[in-house]
Protein backbone atom coordinates (compact mmCIF):
# COMPACT_ATOMS: atom_id res chain seq x y z
CA UNK A 1 0.00 0.00 0.00
CA UNK A 2 2.77 2.43 0.91
CA UNK A 3 4.30 2.90 -2.58
CA UNK A 4 0.87 3.67 -3.98
CA UNK A 5 0.29 6.33 -1.36
CA UNK A 6 3.68 7.85 -2.15
CA UNK A 7 3.15 8.20 -5.86
CA UNK A 8 -0.59 8.76 -5.94
CA UNK A 9 -0.71 12.55 -5.31
CA UNK A 10 1.86 13.23 -8.04
CA UNK A 11 0.18 10.83 -10.41
CA UNK A 12 -3.29 12.27 -9.89
CA UNK A 13 -2.20 15.89 -10.21
CA UNK A 14 -0.06 15.47 -13.31
CA UNK A 15 -2.54 13.10 -14.98
CA UNK A 16 -5.39 15.46 -14.25
CA UNK A 17 -3.86 18.47 -15.99
CA UNK A 18 -3.25 16.41 -19.13
CA UNK A 19 -6.41 14.32 -19.28
CA UNK A 20 -8.94 16.93 -18.23
CA UNK A 21 -7.75 19.66 -20.64
CA UNK A 22 -7.58 17.19 -23.53
CA UNK A 23 -11.12 16.02 -22.78
CA UNK A 24 -12.22 19.63 -22.57
CA UNK A 25 -10.45 20.43 -25.87
CA UNK A 26 -12.23 17.57 -27.62
CA UNK A 27 -15.59 18.69 -26.23
CA UNK A 28 -15.06 22.32 -27.12
CA UNK A 29 -13.72 21.59 -30.59
CA UNK A 30 -16.92 19.76 -31.52
CA UNK A 31 -19.34 22.35 -30.22
CA UNK A 32 -20.54 25.85 -30.74
CA UNK A 33 -19.04 28.26 -28.20
CA UNK A 34 -20.43 31.72 -27.62
CA UNK A 35 -18.25 34.78 -27.29
CA UNK A 36 -18.58 34.44 -23.51
CA UNK A 37 -17.38 30.86 -23.41
CA UNK A 38 -20.77 29.20 -23.07
CA UNK A 39 -20.65 25.83 -24.81
CA UNK A 40 -23.81 24.85 -26.66
CA UNK A 41 -24.72 22.00 -29.05
CA UNK A 42 -22.64 20.00 -31.49
CA UNK A 43 -22.02 21.79 -34.76
CA UNK A 44 -21.06 19.09 -37.27
CA UNK A 45 -17.33 19.82 -37.25
CA UNK A 46 -17.94 23.44 -38.23
CA UNK A 47 -14.94 24.49 -36.08
CA UNK A 48 -12.68 22.09 -37.98
CA UNK A 49 -13.96 23.41 -41.31
CA UNK A 50 -13.50 26.99 -40.20
CA UNK A 51 -9.91 26.34 -39.08
CA UNK A 52 -8.85 24.38 -42.13
CA UNK A 53 -10.31 26.92 -44.54
CA UNK A 54 -8.73 29.88 -42.73
CA UNK A 55 -5.77 31.04 -44.79
CA UNK A 56 -4.23 32.58 -41.66
CA UNK A 57 -4.19 29.10 -40.11
CA UNK A 58 -2.57 27.58 -43.18
CA UNK A 59 0.08 30.29 -43.23
CA UNK A 60 0.72 29.94 -39.51
CA UNK A 61 1.06 26.15 -39.88
CA UNK A 62 3.60 26.52 -42.68
CA UNK A 63 5.46 29.16 -40.69
CA UNK A 64 5.48 26.86 -37.66
CA UNK A 65 7.27 24.23 -39.72
CA UNK A 66 9.86 26.74 -40.97
CA UNK A 67 10.28 28.21 -37.51
CA UNK A 68 10.89 24.78 -35.97
CA UNK A 69 13.19 23.56 -38.76
CA UNK A 70 15.34 26.69 -38.89
CA UNK A 71 15.61 27.26 -35.13
CA UNK A 72 16.34 23.61 -34.34
CA UNK A 73 18.72 23.24 -37.29
CA UNK A 74 20.61 26.43 -36.49
CA UNK A 75 20.76 25.52 -32.81
CA UNK A 76 22.17 22.04 -33.45
CA UNK A 77 24.89 23.29 -35.79
CA UNK A 78 25.97 26.10 -33.44
CA UNK A 79 25.72 23.99 -30.28
CA UNK A 80 27.76 21.14 -31.80
CA UNK A 81 30.64 23.47 -32.57
CA UNK A 82 30.43 25.23 -29.23
CA UNK A 83 30.31 21.96 -27.29
CA UNK A 84 33.37 20.64 -29.15
CA UNK A 85 35.28 23.81 -28.23
CA UNK A 86 34.08 23.89 -24.62
CA UNK A 87 35.10 20.25 -24.26
CA UNK A 88 38.74 21.27 -24.89
CA UNK A 89 40.87 22.91 -22.24
CA UNK A 90 41.72 26.54 -23.00
CA UNK A 91 42.44 29.81 -21.21
CA UNK A 92 39.28 31.39 -19.79
CA UNK A 93 37.05 28.41 -20.61
CA UNK A 94 35.03 28.87 -17.40
CA UNK A 95 34.21 32.48 -18.31
CA UNK A 96 33.29 31.59 -21.89
CA UNK A 97 31.01 28.88 -20.56
CA UNK A 98 29.19 31.23 -18.21
CA UNK A 99 28.58 33.76 -20.99
CA UNK A 100 27.33 31.07 -23.38
CA UNK A 101 24.87 29.78 -20.78
CA UNK A 102 23.67 33.30 -19.92
CA UNK A 103 20.41 33.39 -21.95
CA UNK A 104 19.26 30.20 -20.25
CA UNK A 105 19.24 31.90 -16.86
CA UNK A 106 16.81 34.64 -17.80
CA UNK A 107 13.07 34.58 -18.26
CA UNK A 108 12.57 34.30 -22.01
CA UNK A 109 9.77 36.85 -21.86
CA UNK A 110 11.95 39.43 -20.09
CA UNK A 111 14.88 38.80 -22.42
CA UNK A 112 12.51 39.40 -25.33
CA UNK A 113 11.32 42.67 -23.76
CA UNK A 114 14.95 43.82 -23.80
CA UNK A 115 15.32 42.75 -27.43
CA UNK A 116 12.13 44.62 -28.29
CA UNK A 117 13.68 47.80 -26.96
CA UNK A 118 17.04 47.07 -28.59
CA UNK A 119 15.33 46.53 -31.97
CA UNK A 120 13.44 49.79 -31.65
CA UNK A 121 13.14 51.44 -35.10
CA UNK A 122 15.20 54.59 -35.45
CA UNK A 123 17.11 54.87 -32.23
CA UNK A 124 17.39 51.28 -31.00
CA UNK A 125 20.63 50.01 -29.55
CA UNK A 126 21.04 47.39 -32.28
CA UNK A 127 20.98 50.03 -35.00
CA UNK A 128 23.28 52.18 -32.88
CA UNK A 129 25.76 49.31 -32.50
CA UNK A 130 25.65 48.28 -36.16
CA UNK A 131 26.19 51.88 -37.24
CA UNK A 132 29.11 52.20 -34.82
CA UNK A 133 30.60 49.04 -36.32
CA UNK A 134 30.01 50.42 -39.83
CA UNK A 135 27.82 47.45 -40.81
CA UNK A 136 24.77 49.53 -41.74
CA UNK A 137 24.43 53.12 -42.99
CA UNK A 138 20.95 54.09 -41.87
CA UNK A 139 18.62 52.66 -39.24
CA UNK A 140 16.77 49.45 -40.07
CA UNK A 141 13.18 49.22 -38.84
CA UNK A 142 13.51 45.57 -37.83
CA UNK A 143 9.98 44.75 -36.76
CA UNK A 144 8.06 46.70 -39.41
CA UNK A 145 8.06 43.99 -42.06
CA UNK A 146 7.24 40.33 -41.63
CA UNK A 147 10.35 38.98 -43.30
CA UNK A 148 12.94 40.94 -41.29
CA UNK A 149 10.93 40.47 -38.09
CA UNK A 150 10.68 36.72 -38.60
CA UNK A 151 14.40 36.46 -39.40
CA UNK A 152 15.27 38.31 -36.19
CA UNK A 153 12.91 36.04 -34.24
CA UNK A 154 14.56 32.91 -35.65
CA UNK A 155 17.99 34.23 -34.65
CA UNK A 156 16.80 34.99 -31.11
CA UNK A 157 15.21 31.53 -31.01
CA UNK A 158 18.56 29.96 -31.92
CA UNK A 159 20.48 32.04 -29.37
CA UNK A 160 18.22 31.04 -26.49
CA UNK A 161 18.15 27.34 -27.48
CA UNK A 162 21.94 27.02 -27.66
CA UNK A 163 22.64 26.71 -23.89
CA UNK A 164 20.37 23.70 -23.29
CA UNK A 165 21.56 21.91 -26.43
CA UNK A 166 25.21 22.63 -25.68
CA UNK A 167 24.74 21.16 -22.21
CA UNK A 168 23.32 17.93 -23.64
CA UNK A 169 26.24 17.67 -26.08
CA UNK A 170 28.79 18.40 -23.34
CA UNK A 171 27.23 15.64 -21.26
CA UNK A 172 27.67 13.30 -24.22
CA UNK A 173 31.24 14.36 -24.99
CA UNK A 174 32.33 13.91 -21.38
CA UNK A 175 31.06 10.32 -21.43
CA UNK A 176 33.16 9.29 -24.46
CA UNK A 177 35.81 6.74 -23.47
CA UNK A 178 39.25 8.33 -23.60
CA UNK A 179 41.09 5.02 -24.03
CA UNK A 180 39.37 4.48 -27.38
CA UNK A 181 40.97 7.66 -28.68
CA UNK A 182 44.35 6.68 -27.28
CA UNK A 183 44.18 3.31 -28.99
CA UNK A 184 43.19 4.92 -32.29
CA UNK A 185 46.00 7.47 -31.96
CA UNK A 186 48.48 4.62 -31.36
CA UNK A 187 47.36 3.06 -34.62
CA UNK A 188 48.17 6.34 -36.34
CA UNK A 189 44.65 7.69 -36.83
CA UNK A 190 44.37 11.43 -37.50
CA UNK A 191 42.25 13.85 -35.43
CA UNK A 192 39.71 14.06 -38.23
CA UNK A 193 39.58 10.28 -38.56
CA UNK A 194 39.00 9.88 -34.81
CA UNK A 195 36.25 12.48 -34.96
CA UNK A 196 34.49 10.74 -37.82
CA UNK A 197 34.78 7.17 -36.62
CA UNK A 198 34.51 7.59 -32.84
CA UNK A 199 32.98 10.95 -31.86
CA UNK A 200 30.22 11.19 -34.47
CA UNK A 201 28.75 7.68 -34.06
CA UNK A 202 29.01 7.73 -30.27
CA UNK A 203 27.32 11.12 -30.08
CA UNK A 204 24.39 9.94 -32.20
CA UNK A 205 22.02 9.18 -29.27
CA UNK A 206 22.67 12.61 -27.74
CA UNK A 207 22.04 14.31 -31.07
CA UNK A 208 18.78 12.39 -31.46
CA UNK A 209 17.56 13.42 -28.02
CA UNK A 210 18.60 17.03 -28.63
CA UNK A 211 16.63 17.05 -31.88
CA UNK A 212 13.45 15.63 -30.38
CA UNK A 213 13.47 17.80 -27.24
CA UNK A 214 14.29 20.94 -29.21
CA UNK A 215 11.54 20.27 -31.74
CA UNK A 216 9.07 20.00 -28.86
CA UNK A 217 10.28 23.14 -27.07
CA UNK A 218 10.67 25.29 -30.19
CA UNK A 219 7.36 24.24 -31.74
CA UNK A 220 5.67 25.39 -28.51
CA UNK A 221 7.73 28.54 -28.10
CA UNK A 222 5.49 31.51 -27.48
CA UNK A 223 7.12 34.57 -25.81
CA UNK A 224 9.60 35.61 -28.53
CA UNK A 225 7.02 36.13 -31.24
CA UNK A 226 4.22 37.30 -28.96
CA UNK A 227 6.23 39.96 -27.17
CA UNK A 228 8.04 41.24 -30.26
CA UNK A 229 5.06 41.58 -32.61
CA UNK A 230 2.06 39.56 -31.37
CA UNK A 231 2.33 37.78 -34.71
CA UNK A 232 2.19 41.01 -36.66
CA UNK A 233 2.54 43.06 -38.73
CA UNK A 234 -0.70 41.84 -40.34
CA UNK A 235 -0.29 38.30 -38.96
CA UNK A 236 2.86 37.86 -41.02
CA UNK A 237 4.88 36.31 -38.15
CA UNK A 238 2.22 34.09 -36.60
CA UNK A 239 3.08 30.50 -35.84
CA UNK A 240 0.47 28.05 -34.57
CA UNK A 241 0.90 28.94 -30.89
CA UNK A 242 0.48 32.67 -31.39
CA UNK A 243 -2.40 32.06 -33.82
CA UNK A 244 -3.97 29.91 -31.11
CA UNK A 245 -3.69 32.66 -28.49
CA UNK A 246 -4.99 35.24 -30.88
CA UNK A 247 -8.17 33.43 -31.88
CA UNK A 248 -8.77 32.21 -28.33
CA UNK A 249 -8.09 35.24 -26.17
CA UNK A 250 -8.37 38.17 -28.57
CA UNK A 251 -11.26 37.04 -30.76
CA UNK A 252 -12.87 34.66 -28.26
CA UNK A 253 -13.22 31.81 -30.78
CA UNK A 254 -12.64 29.04 -28.26
CA UNK A 255 -14.11 26.31 -30.47
CA UNK A 256 -11.68 26.96 -33.31
CA UNK A 257 -8.79 27.49 -30.92
CA UNK A 258 -9.50 24.04 -29.44
CA UNK A 259 -9.17 22.50 -32.88
CA UNK A 260 -5.73 24.11 -33.29
CA UNK A 261 -4.74 22.92 -29.83
CA UNK A 262 -5.80 19.36 -30.60
CA UNK A 263 -3.84 19.30 -33.85
CA UNK A 264 -0.74 20.50 -31.99
CA UNK A 265 -1.36 17.94 -29.26
CA UNK A 266 -1.41 15.08 -31.78
CA UNK A 267 1.79 16.33 -33.37
CA UNK A 268 3.52 16.52 -29.98
CA UNK A 269 2.21 13.11 -28.97
CA UNK A 270 4.00 11.64 -31.98
CA UNK A 271 7.22 13.34 -30.92
CA UNK A 272 6.78 12.27 -27.30
CA UNK A 273 6.47 8.66 -28.52
CA UNK A 274 9.65 9.09 -30.54
CA UNK A 275 11.43 10.51 -27.50
CA UNK A 276 10.27 7.59 -25.40
CA UNK A 277 11.73 5.14 -27.90
CA UNK A 278 15.05 6.96 -27.92
CA UNK A 279 15.21 7.03 -24.12
CA UNK A 280 14.27 3.39 -23.65
CA UNK A 281 16.98 2.36 -26.14
CA UNK A 282 19.63 4.00 -24.00
CA UNK A 283 21.23 1.19 -21.98
CA UNK A 284 22.16 3.61 -19.17
CA UNK A 285 18.48 4.13 -18.55
CA UNK A 286 17.15 0.58 -18.66
Amino acid at each position, binding site marked *: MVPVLFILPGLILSAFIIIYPVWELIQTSLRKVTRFGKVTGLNDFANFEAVFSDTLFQEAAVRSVWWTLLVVGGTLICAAGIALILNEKFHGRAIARVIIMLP*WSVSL*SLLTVVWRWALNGETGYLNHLLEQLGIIDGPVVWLASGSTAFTVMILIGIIVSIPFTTTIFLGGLSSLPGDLYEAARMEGASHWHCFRTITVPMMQPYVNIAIVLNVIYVFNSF*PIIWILTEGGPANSTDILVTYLYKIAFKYGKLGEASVVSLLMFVFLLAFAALYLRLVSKDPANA
Partner: protein
Amino acid sequence: MPDRRRSLIYWIVLSPLLLINLFPFAVMISTALTPADEVVSGDTQWIPSRFAWENFVDMWQTVDFGTALMNSLVVGIVTTVLTIVVSVPAAYAMVRLDFKGKTAFQTFLLITQMFSPVVLVIGLFRLVVGIGALDSLIALSILYCCFHIAFAVWMLRSYFASIPAELEHAAWLEGASAFHAIRTVFVPMAAPAVAVTAIFTFIGAWNEYALALAILRSSEHYTLPLKIAALSSGRYQVEWHHVMAATFVATIPVAIVFMWLQRHMITGLSGGAVKG
Protein backbone atom coordinates in the same frame (compact mmCIF):
# COMPACT_ATOMS: atom_id res chain seq x y z
CA MET B 1 48.88 24.04 -19.62
CA PRO B 2 46.64 24.86 -22.60
CA ASP B 3 48.60 26.75 -25.22
CA ARG B 4 47.96 30.40 -25.97
CA ARG B 5 47.47 30.30 -29.70
CA ARG B 6 44.73 27.71 -29.49
CA SER B 7 43.01 29.58 -26.68
CA LEU B 8 43.01 32.74 -28.79
CA ILE B 9 41.53 30.91 -31.78
CA TYR B 10 38.76 29.43 -29.63
CA TRP B 11 37.91 32.83 -28.19
CA ILE B 12 37.76 34.35 -31.67
CA VAL B 13 35.48 31.58 -32.91
CA LEU B 14 33.18 31.96 -29.92
CA SER B 15 33.21 35.76 -29.88
CA PRO B 16 30.16 36.42 -32.13
CA LEU B 17 27.92 34.39 -29.83
CA LEU B 18 29.51 35.82 -26.69
CA LEU B 19 28.82 39.35 -27.98
CA ILE B 20 25.24 38.54 -28.94
CA ASN B 21 24.63 37.06 -25.46
CA LEU B 22 26.09 40.05 -23.66
CA PHE B 23 24.35 42.58 -25.90
CA PRO B 24 20.88 42.47 -24.21
CA PHE B 25 22.49 42.81 -20.78
CA ALA B 26 24.44 45.84 -21.92
CA VAL B 27 21.24 47.34 -23.34
CA MET B 28 19.34 46.61 -20.14
CA ILE B 29 21.97 48.08 -17.82
CA SER B 30 22.70 51.08 -20.05
CA THR B 31 19.04 52.06 -20.39
CA ALA B 32 18.25 51.44 -16.73
CA LEU B 33 20.91 54.02 -15.83
CA THR B 34 20.08 56.61 -18.49
CA PRO B 35 18.19 59.76 -17.38
CA ALA B 36 14.63 59.99 -18.72
CA ASP B 37 15.23 63.00 -20.98
CA GLU B 38 18.17 61.30 -22.70
CA VAL B 39 16.08 58.15 -23.37
CA VAL B 40 13.32 60.24 -24.94
CA SER B 41 15.74 62.40 -26.97
CA GLY B 42 16.57 59.36 -29.11
CA ASP B 43 20.29 60.07 -29.03
CA THR B 44 21.32 56.52 -28.11
CA GLN B 45 24.52 56.32 -26.06
CA TRP B 46 26.06 53.29 -24.36
CA ILE B 47 27.33 55.40 -21.47
CA PRO B 48 24.81 58.02 -20.33
CA SER B 49 25.97 61.54 -19.40
CA ARG B 50 25.29 60.65 -15.76
CA PHE B 51 24.09 57.53 -13.97
CA ALA B 52 20.40 57.97 -13.17
CA TRP B 53 20.12 55.77 -10.09
CA GLU B 54 16.79 57.44 -9.36
CA ASN B 55 15.30 55.33 -12.21
CA PHE B 56 15.23 52.39 -9.83
CA VAL B 57 13.39 54.34 -7.15
CA ASP B 58 10.95 55.94 -9.61
CA MET B 59 10.35 52.61 -11.33
CA TRP B 60 9.14 51.09 -8.07
CA GLN B 61 6.29 53.61 -8.05
CA THR B 62 5.40 53.92 -11.73
CA VAL B 63 5.62 50.20 -12.48
CA ASP B 64 3.96 49.24 -9.18
CA PHE B 65 6.90 46.87 -8.88
CA GLY B 66 6.19 45.89 -5.27
CA THR B 67 2.80 44.35 -6.09
CA ALA B 68 4.13 42.38 -9.06
CA LEU B 69 7.10 41.23 -6.97
CA MET B 70 4.78 40.01 -4.22
CA ASN B 71 2.63 38.16 -6.79
CA SER B 72 5.68 36.49 -8.27
CA LEU B 73 6.91 35.52 -4.80
CA VAL B 74 3.52 34.06 -3.85
CA VAL B 75 3.30 32.05 -7.07
CA GLY B 76 6.92 30.92 -6.79
CA ILE B 77 6.68 29.85 -3.15
CA VAL B 78 3.29 28.11 -3.38
CA THR B 79 4.38 26.27 -6.53
CA THR B 80 7.67 25.19 -4.96
CA VAL B 81 6.21 23.98 -1.67
CA LEU B 82 3.41 22.02 -3.36
CA THR B 83 5.74 20.49 -5.93
CA ILE B 84 8.25 19.37 -3.31
CA VAL B 85 5.59 17.94 -0.99
CA VAL B 86 4.18 15.85 -3.83
CA SER B 87 7.43 14.91 -5.58
CA VAL B 88 9.69 13.82 -2.72
CA PRO B 89 7.59 10.80 -1.66
CA ALA B 90 7.09 9.80 -5.31
CA ALA B 91 10.81 9.98 -6.01
CA TYR B 92 11.55 8.05 -2.81
CA ALA B 93 9.12 5.31 -3.85
CA MET B 94 10.77 5.12 -7.27
CA VAL B 95 14.23 4.41 -5.93
CA ARG B 96 13.52 2.45 -2.74
CA LEU B 97 10.25 0.60 -3.13
CA ASP B 98 9.14 -2.07 -5.54
CA PHE B 99 5.65 -1.85 -6.90
CA LYS B 100 3.61 -2.88 -9.89
CA GLY B 101 3.44 -0.29 -12.62
CA LYS B 102 6.69 1.44 -11.68
CA THR B 103 7.88 1.49 -15.29
CA ALA B 104 4.50 2.73 -16.42
CA PHE B 105 4.66 5.58 -13.88
CA GLN B 106 8.15 6.45 -15.08
CA THR B 107 7.02 6.49 -18.71
CA PHE B 108 3.99 8.55 -17.85
CA LEU B 109 6.13 11.19 -16.16
CA LEU B 110 8.37 11.42 -19.20
CA ILE B 111 5.35 11.99 -21.42
CA THR B 112 3.85 14.70 -19.22
CA GLN B 113 7.16 16.53 -19.40
CA MET B 114 6.68 16.76 -23.15
CA PHE B 115 3.48 18.78 -22.93
CA SER B 116 4.09 22.40 -22.30
CA PRO B 117 1.11 24.27 -20.85
CA VAL B 118 0.84 26.25 -24.10
CA VAL B 119 -0.66 23.44 -26.15
CA LEU B 120 -3.28 22.69 -23.47
CA VAL B 121 -3.95 26.31 -22.62
CA ILE B 122 -7.59 26.41 -23.76
CA GLY B 123 -8.45 23.32 -21.72
CA LEU B 124 -6.63 24.68 -18.68
CA PHE B 125 -8.32 28.03 -19.14
CA ARG B 126 -11.76 26.39 -19.26
CA LEU B 127 -10.90 24.30 -16.21
CA VAL B 128 -9.96 27.40 -14.24
CA VAL B 129 -13.05 29.27 -15.43
CA GLY B 130 -15.19 26.26 -14.53
CA ILE B 131 -14.10 26.28 -10.90
CA GLY B 132 -14.42 30.06 -10.76
CA ALA B 133 -10.71 30.63 -10.23
CA LEU B 134 -9.86 32.82 -13.19
CA ASP B 135 -7.36 35.54 -12.22
CA SER B 136 -6.33 33.55 -9.10
CA LEU B 137 -2.65 33.35 -8.19
CA ILE B 138 -3.25 30.15 -6.24
CA ALA B 139 -4.94 28.44 -9.20
CA LEU B 140 -1.98 29.43 -11.37
CA SER B 141 0.43 28.04 -8.75
CA ILE B 142 -1.40 24.70 -8.62
CA LEU B 143 -1.20 24.41 -12.41
CA TYR B 144 2.50 25.24 -12.32
CA CYS B 145 2.97 22.59 -9.64
CA CYS B 146 1.28 19.96 -11.84
CA PHE B 147 3.58 20.80 -14.73
CA HIS B 148 6.69 20.69 -12.53
CA ILE B 149 6.05 17.33 -10.86
CA ALA B 150 7.60 15.26 -13.65
CA PHE B 151 10.75 17.37 -13.73
CA ALA B 152 11.07 17.38 -9.94
CA VAL B 153 10.55 13.62 -9.58
CA TRP B 154 13.12 12.90 -12.29
CA MET B 155 15.69 15.16 -10.73
CA LEU B 156 15.12 13.90 -7.20
CA ARG B 157 15.10 10.30 -8.39
CA SER B 158 18.57 10.47 -9.85
CA TYR B 159 19.95 12.04 -6.67
CA PHE B 160 18.12 9.69 -4.32
CA ALA B 161 19.47 6.73 -6.28
CA SER B 162 22.98 7.77 -5.30
CA ILE B 163 22.21 7.61 -1.57
CA PRO B 164 23.09 4.06 -0.47
CA ALA B 165 20.10 2.12 0.86
CA GLU B 166 22.46 0.16 3.12
CA LEU B 167 22.63 3.10 5.51
CA GLU B 168 18.91 2.91 6.12
CA HIS B 169 19.08 -0.86 6.44
CA ALA B 170 21.81 -0.50 9.03
CA ALA B 171 19.56 1.81 11.04
CA TRP B 172 16.79 -0.79 10.88
CA LEU B 173 19.16 -3.43 12.26
CA GLU B 174 19.85 -1.16 15.17
CA GLY B 175 16.15 -1.20 15.88
CA ALA B 176 15.03 2.01 14.26
CA SER B 177 11.59 2.06 12.65
CA ALA B 178 11.41 2.61 8.90
CA PHE B 179 10.09 6.10 9.51
CA HIS B 180 12.84 6.87 12.02
CA ALA B 181 15.47 5.57 9.58
CA ILE B 182 14.14 7.81 6.83
CA ARG B 183 14.13 10.79 9.14
CA THR B 184 17.58 10.38 10.64
CA VAL B 185 19.50 8.82 7.74
CA PHE B 186 17.78 9.60 4.45
CA VAL B 187 16.45 13.11 5.00
CA PRO B 188 19.76 14.78 5.90
CA MET B 189 21.49 13.21 2.89
CA ALA B 190 18.65 14.08 0.53
CA ALA B 191 18.28 17.67 1.73
CA PRO B 192 20.73 19.27 -0.73
CA ALA B 193 19.04 17.57 -3.70
CA VAL B 194 15.65 18.73 -2.46
CA ALA B 195 17.00 22.27 -2.12
CA VAL B 196 18.38 22.29 -5.67
CA THR B 197 15.12 20.91 -7.07
CA ALA B 198 13.14 23.47 -5.09
CA ILE B 199 15.20 26.34 -6.50
CA PHE B 200 14.74 25.15 -10.08
CA THR B 201 11.01 24.82 -9.52
CA PHE B 202 10.90 28.32 -8.08
CA ILE B 203 12.78 29.78 -11.04
CA GLY B 204 10.52 27.92 -13.48
CA ALA B 205 7.44 29.47 -11.87
CA TRP B 206 9.16 32.85 -11.59
CA ASN B 207 9.94 32.95 -15.33
CA GLU B 208 6.75 31.49 -16.83
CA TYR B 209 4.78 33.74 -19.15
CA ALA B 210 2.36 31.99 -21.52
CA LEU B 211 0.06 30.32 -18.98
CA ALA B 212 0.07 33.34 -16.67
CA LEU B 213 -1.03 35.44 -19.64
CA ALA B 214 -4.08 33.22 -20.09
CA ILE B 215 -5.04 32.85 -16.41
CA LEU B 216 -4.28 36.23 -14.83
CA ARG B 217 -6.63 38.98 -15.89
CA SER B 218 -6.35 42.04 -13.65
CA SER B 219 -3.09 43.94 -13.67
CA GLU B 220 -2.86 43.97 -9.86
CA HIS B 221 -2.51 40.17 -10.06
CA TYR B 222 0.20 40.23 -12.74
CA THR B 223 3.47 38.45 -12.04
CA LEU B 224 6.72 40.22 -12.95
CA PRO B 225 7.14 38.89 -16.52
CA LEU B 226 3.52 39.72 -17.28
CA LYS B 227 3.72 43.17 -15.74
CA ILE B 228 6.91 44.12 -17.51
CA ALA B 229 5.82 42.71 -20.87
CA ALA B 230 2.51 44.58 -20.57
CA LEU B 231 4.29 47.85 -19.81
CA SER B 232 6.65 47.44 -22.76
CA SER B 233 3.76 47.09 -25.19
CA GLY B 234 1.74 49.93 -23.73
CA ARG B 235 -0.41 52.09 -25.95
CA TYR B 236 1.18 55.27 -24.70
CA GLN B 237 4.79 56.38 -24.50
CA VAL B 238 6.72 53.46 -22.99
CA GLU B 239 8.99 54.56 -20.12
CA TRP B 240 11.85 52.37 -21.30
CA HIS B 241 14.28 53.46 -18.59
CA HIS B 242 11.76 52.27 -15.99
CA VAL B 243 10.97 49.07 -17.87
CA MET B 244 14.67 48.22 -18.15
CA ALA B 245 15.29 49.04 -14.48
CA ALA B 246 12.42 46.70 -13.55
CA THR B 247 13.72 43.99 -15.90
CA PHE B 248 17.13 44.32 -14.30
CA VAL B 249 15.80 43.82 -10.76
CA ALA B 250 13.56 40.91 -11.84
CA THR B 251 16.37 39.23 -13.77
CA ILE B 252 19.76 39.58 -12.17
CA PRO B 253 19.19 37.84 -8.77
CA VAL B 254 17.50 34.86 -10.43
CA ALA B 255 20.14 34.72 -13.17
CA ILE B 256 22.95 34.57 -10.62
CA VAL B 257 21.32 31.71 -8.71
CA PHE B 258 20.64 29.88 -11.94
CA MET B 259 24.20 30.23 -13.24
CA TRP B 260 25.42 28.83 -9.98
CA LEU B 261 23.13 25.77 -10.11
CA GLN B 262 22.94 25.27 -13.85
CA ARG B 263 25.15 22.16 -13.94
CA HIS B 264 22.51 20.26 -11.94
CA MET B 265 19.78 21.09 -14.41
CA ILE B 266 20.45 18.61 -17.15
CA THR B 267 19.52 15.59 -15.05
CA GLY B 268 15.95 16.76 -14.76
CA LEU B 269 15.51 18.25 -18.20
CA SER B 270 16.48 15.25 -20.21
CA GLY B 271 14.75 12.72 -18.04
CA GLY B 272 17.89 10.86 -17.03
CA ALA B 273 18.54 9.92 -20.63
CA VAL B 274 21.68 12.01 -20.71
CA LYS B 275 24.11 11.91 -17.88
CA GLY B 276 25.24 15.42 -17.01
